[in-house]
């Protein structure tokens, strides 16, 4: 090769490369990923953006924000049941002591179920905000747009409600919080937080379709009924705790009346089937967290849940947490079929399998919850069982409580009796004979669970409603907040625990003392959010 030729060749190839332009060489779009800019111009993308908000609601554990460090397990029963008189921690005495801390009110801001609840809730809020703030500019169909926005608003309220119940007032974000803004973030008051939640739920109720308007494949999405139901629940909680927003029982009454009048819901005939596969997304379901079988081992990528495994018998394949107390067992009236549906005791046959309950070595009370009993899934981390978050029975009993508070005791009694009548005709739980999963007849005597007397009223009526709530929703994670909002929480705790709980409570200018859990360690210490009373 001659020198001149070589030079010419190189010059030519350099020229050719740069003829196509430097800009195209340097302008790159991210590969293989959707960007925020095109999330809401495509209906599939837009739906998927909303799906990712639901996903957060289903997380048991997993990477922080879905992309970061591991965070520990959290389930609503860790607060709703274990922190109440309905359940002990369970498992072996030394297993998962953060739950013991919750049970005994010795938790610290590093308590892992609390930290995870905090992180997950705000992750869900951030994702909901992505939808709420960007969907209006998108080019997708207007009807889909309004439904999706309604779903996101409902979910933002759902996450904030979980936060305010546990931690009190929290920072309120209507859009993504920028790094430059974090230093000035403040905690809102409890009533401000509730007002924020109500605003979202009302907007969601206006945008969302009724349950029956969804296509079958969309069953499980937020509905108008769910939004109204959560609004009623949020108002009811405020009525018994911090009612700075000046709510009345009439509002609870009206909302529940609207839901009942929508004719979207009815009680499932057989109480024993509610927590079984056939009970998922049934006529009784206002909202539940959806799961499916997968092979995932852990983390939010999972579409399955460890919820059932955690509460299952260690002698079969589970971890044995959340053991019903004798106090709860004694609450059931004689021959109430719900008692057997709720409990497992040593020697019971559950879903056709003989269960030995190893009390006290691996169990704290001698009982386990039968509502979460399952056969071993393929991977223990990925059970497909949905978690019921709001049932129609709750709407009936909320309305009954509102009616009782408003002096309409006759109406209240009838609503409670609807629930009792259904319970009375329940079968035994499935699989009480070894090797079967069939529903055996309960042979409940006619005298069991008699109707409430028509003339019942006043405190006696309220007590009867609260009793009904306790047994109807036993081990469904509602007890702790029911106790708090009715002012009975401190009374059911051992005195030393009650003293500690009270030291972490807001007692001034509230209806009943509001015990608050410590907010997440990092955000309190590093980012300067004020910690709740008595924690450091």
């Amino acid at each position, binding site marked *: 090769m001659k020198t001149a030729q070589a*030079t010419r060749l190189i010059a030519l190839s350099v020229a050719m490369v740069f003829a196509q332009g430097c800009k195209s060489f340097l302008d790159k779009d991210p590969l293989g990923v959707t960007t925020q800019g095109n999330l809401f111009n495509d209906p599939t993308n837009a739906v998927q953006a909303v799906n990712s908000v639901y996903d957060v609601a289903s997380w048991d554990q997993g990477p922080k924000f879905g992309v970061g460090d591991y965070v520990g397990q959290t389930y609503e029963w860790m607060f709703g049941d274990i922190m109440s008189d309905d359940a002990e921690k369970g498992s072996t005495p030394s297993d998962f002591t953060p739950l013991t801390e919750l049970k005994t009110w010795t938790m610290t801001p590093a308590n892992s179920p609390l930290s995870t609840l905090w992180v997950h809730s705000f992750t869900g809020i951030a994702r909901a905000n992505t939808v709420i703030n960007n969907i209006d500019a998108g080019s997708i169909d207007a009807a889909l747009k309004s439904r999706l926005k309604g779903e996101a608003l409902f979910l933002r309220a759902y996450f904030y409600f979980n936060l305010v119940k546990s931690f009190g007032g929290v920072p309120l974000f209507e859009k993504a919080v920028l790094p430059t803004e974090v230093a000035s973030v403040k905690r809102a008051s409890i009533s401000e937080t509730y007002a924020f939640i109500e605003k979202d739920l009302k907007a969601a109720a206006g945008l969302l379709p009724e349950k029956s308007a969804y296509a079958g494949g969309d069953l499980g999405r937020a509905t108008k009924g769910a939004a109204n139901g959560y609004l009623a629940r949020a108002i009811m909680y405020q009525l018994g705790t911090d009612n700075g927003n000046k709510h009345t029982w009439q509002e609870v009454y009206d909302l529940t009346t609207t839901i009942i009048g929508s004719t979207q819901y009815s009680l499932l005939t057989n109480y024993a089937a509610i927590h079984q596969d056939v009970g998922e997304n049934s006529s009784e379901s206002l909202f539940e967290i959806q799961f499916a079988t997968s092979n995932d081992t852990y983390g939010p990528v999972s579409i399955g849940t460890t919820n059932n495994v955690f509460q299952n018998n260690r002698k079969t394949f589970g971890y044995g947490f959340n053991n019903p107390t004798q106090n709860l067992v004694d609450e059931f009236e004689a021959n109430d079929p719900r008692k057997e549906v709720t409990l497992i005791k040593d020697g019971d046959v559950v879903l056709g399998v003989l269960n030995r309950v190893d009390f006290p070595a691996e169990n704290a009370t001698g009982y386990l919850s039968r509502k979460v009993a399952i056969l071993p899934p393929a991977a223990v981390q990925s059970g497909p069982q949905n978690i019921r978050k709001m049932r129609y029975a709750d709407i009936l009993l909320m309305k009954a409580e509102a009616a009782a508070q408003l002096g309409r005791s006759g109406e209240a009694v009838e609503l409670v009796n609807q629930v009792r009548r259904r319970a009375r005709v329940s079968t035994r739980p499935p699989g009480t004979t070894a090797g079967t999963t069939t529903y055996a007849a309960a042979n409940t005597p006619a005298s069991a669970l008699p109707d409430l007397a028509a003339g019942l009223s006043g405190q006696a009526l309220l007590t009867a409603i609260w009793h009904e709530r306790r047994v109807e929703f036993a081990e469904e994670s509602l007890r702790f907040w029911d106790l708090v909002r009715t002012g009975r929480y401190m009374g059911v705790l051992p005195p030393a625990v009650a003293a500690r709980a009270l030291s972490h409570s807001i007692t001034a200018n509230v209806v009943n003392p509001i015990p608050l859990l410590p907010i997440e360690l990092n955000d309190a210490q590093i980012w300067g959010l004020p910690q709740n009373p008595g924690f*450091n």
Partner: protein
Amino acid sequence: MRAFLQTAGVLLCSTSLAFAQQRAVQGVVTDSKGEPLPGATVLVKGTTVGATTGPDGNFQIALPAGSTTLVVSFVGSKSQEVVVGSQSTVRVALESAAQSLDDVVVVGYGTARKSDLTGAVASVTGAQLTQVATSDAVQSLQGRVAGVDVTSNSGQPGSGTRIRVRGVGTINNSDPLYVVDGIQTADISFLLPVDIESTEILKDASATAIYGSRGANGVVLITTKHGKEGKVQFNLFGYTGFQQIRRTLPLANAQQYATLVTEAYNNAGSPIPSDYSAILAGALQPGAGAGTDYQKFVTQKGLITNYSLSASGGNEQNRYLVSGSYFQQNGIIQASGLKKYVIRVNDDLVLTKRVKAGIAATFSAADQTGAGDGTGNAFYSTVLQNAIQANPITSPYNADGSYSYNNITSFTPNLARYLAEQEFNKTTSTSLFSNAYLDVTLLKGLTFRSTFGITYANNHAKQYQPQYYLGPNDQRSQSALTEARLENVAWVWSNYFNYTKELSNNSSFSATVGQEAQRNTYSGIGLRAFDVPAETSLQYLTAARSANYSLVTPNPYDASILSYFGRVNYNFRDRYLVTATLRFDQTSKFLETNRTGTFPSVGVAWNVSNEEFMKGITAVSQLKVRGSFGAVGNQNAAPNYGYASTATTNQNYVFGPDQTRAPGVAIATLNNPNLKWETAVTADIGLDASFLDNRLTFTGDYFERRTKDMIALIPVPNFAGQAAAAANVGSLRNRGLELALNYRNEIGKLQYNVGVNFTKINNVVTDLGGATPLASGNVLSQIGNTTRTDVGREIAYFYGLQSTGVFHSQAEVDGYRNAAGAAFQPGAQPGDVRYQDVNGDGKIDASDNTYLGSATPSFTYGASLNLSYSNFDFKVLLYGVQGAEAVNAAAFNLSKSSAFAGIWTNFYADRMDRWTPSNPTSDQPRVTSNDTNNGGGYNDKFSSRYVENASFLRARNMELGYSLSKVLISKFQITGFRVFASVDNVFTVTKYRGLDPEISATGYYNNPLAYGVDFGNYPQPRTYRLGFNVQF
């Protein structure tokens, strides 16, 4: 025969033979001491006529008419040109190839005489690099060069190395740029130390600014071995030996463990949990034994071997090298190891008088076994950490030989089973690094060079996780197989002109101007399948029995840089030197408005020793003063697509009665469209001097580097709900002093060479853009954050409570009251940890967190000693770090007072000296299952108790070699034969109580803000080797 071959060679290569006359020249080649050198190459300059010296160093050569000069070369010596003139016998004494200021060193896009440099450049020769037993070319730089801090990511085979040129320059990626034979690359794991001819490290802006946006963290220029003129030269190098753990931690045995746990419950007045009591009681029975030493259980003596064979040679037209290497290392932890194969070829051609070309290729394949050592994995998955945490009572095996279930520390897996599983964790990586160049001389002094380099790398990771059930907390309900194929293709194409003009009076002018394009693409596919049979032949995706699988495919990327650069040098009478460089870089990593970075620099130097007034001062051989100033960028800090708000997939949910998977995408990470260049402005003043006929050399530099617009992932509060975005967050300043001193001399037959280097760097964060101090280093959820990065301090300093010992008595507890008379630490009992009320608010809480030291050392130093006496040689290499602290996060569990989440992991054995009423003077806190200190939980808060002195002095290597007499071996046609015995990490002087004071900064999720937080590294092994080196 030889004469015939020579004649044949001449016949083939010369067309003018018939007219040539030739005459015979005889000679002898010796070393500087006069010892004959057999096997030295003698060539007639400008021809292919050559000869090799015989056993007595003699040679005979036919000198063609018109030729007057011989070129004499020998491995390990400097080549020498000898003008024969009319003589018929010559005597040539070759100097050994020790460095001097006249050496030519590689600089960016060219070479320069060391004496002409205006920048700070340090060189390390290949022979120095092979002194330490490692497969890692970077690791072998440790302790060699002032201002270059090299730390292994871990002692695990193949885990890579962290290198910092002049300190941590940014809170983001601080890796330097590597340039191998002119090709920029981010990774040099394809090279073995034995393949490297020389390494230059460019430290200041005058030297690095030609690399613009990639120069901020320094540039490591690597020249690989190439063929040299002369007859074929074979080089066989090999060693074999073994490695073992330097030390294991002194931990409690079964009885001590049971004593402490039992006492903890007794102290709290609570019953021992029923699932523990029998196990603890059993261990306390007389004659129950010491239990299992899990550290011993998981460690081993690991074999290490390396063999390398190369052949090289050539003539003026064609020079070649072919080499093959095999490296094998079994880790000091069972089920970890590395095998590496490297094949290299290169060929340099003179095509015409004006055109030169060359090609080179390096293929490397590596098989790595084992994971979970802490390099990027979480704390709780490391084999060694699990071994340290496991309770010593439970044997890994049941009486029937099956794996046992550890009921007390059930979250540490059964180690026998866990080790067996590590064998199924394999990574195979292969890479092909190839390049070609064309060099054209256009006019006298003007050359054009085009270099194209392309690297293909792929990585096959395969991990099989068997199904098993030992107990509720140690089980896997379904087997899984994860396999991934990752591919990376990167190319760099550089085109540049070099112009050199020699002026009168030893003055000269040179200029370089060029253009460069780079592209780096990455993609891959990964799958995780389930219910895969355990049989080895069925551990494949195709054998999966579950219909479901998950994608674990990484995000692909495509990044480009387009650059223009130039440099001018002016040398006035060999006294005054000026270098100016300018580079423009445009990157695809930023949006168009922030895309272009401009990086100028200027350097000046004064060769004082060349001044007339120095001529008489013979003691000073060389004296040069240098100064430089410039700006360089750190593109490494910028993530791909950091400006874009991208969605994370696989955020799935389920809808409908059929429980159909509904895919979800989320904006899980914040974005920042304003992302722009991170820039480092560097100033440097240096002095190079040599004395006593170059026997004593000295280099000193004082520098300041200001990094501004530092790109980093800013920690975000959890209430943000999204992961952090990369942003230009602030500024950092490094000021430092580097000194290097070398002395070589001989006493009779004893030759010696002593080198010391010293580096002091002062690192200060000068601005965080008003952001909250960055908290990080939360390697253990129990302790939370351990570091803080704030204005006015060094990066990632340790931040926690100041402990002032323990309360020795009730009187001390009662006496610890604030001004208002209230207890500082309510609930504290004798034996509990006492803390200082730093902020003086009368109580102890997180607002009392204070500065507790940092991993930034006061200074680092290295020293080397080379001795040679007759045929023996002896080398020592020392490396030290002074004034550094470390967070011993492993000790956090080992020194605990209470259980974490109900789990009583093992203890340091010295916890037996804990405070008890009968041992009231102890400074070790009591054990208790109910820590009531300061409202509860304060015995085990992160505090100064866990910040330890991590200074160390390490004998990195000692080696004794013996070279066979050249006279003797030449009878066997061998030109060199050396055997050696070598020990790495001979001793380490440190007070640090963890496994190894040399702590990786990149281990924990690659987080630079976890700098110095020891979460239980795979420690540096001690290595014993025997080896040889033969040339023939």
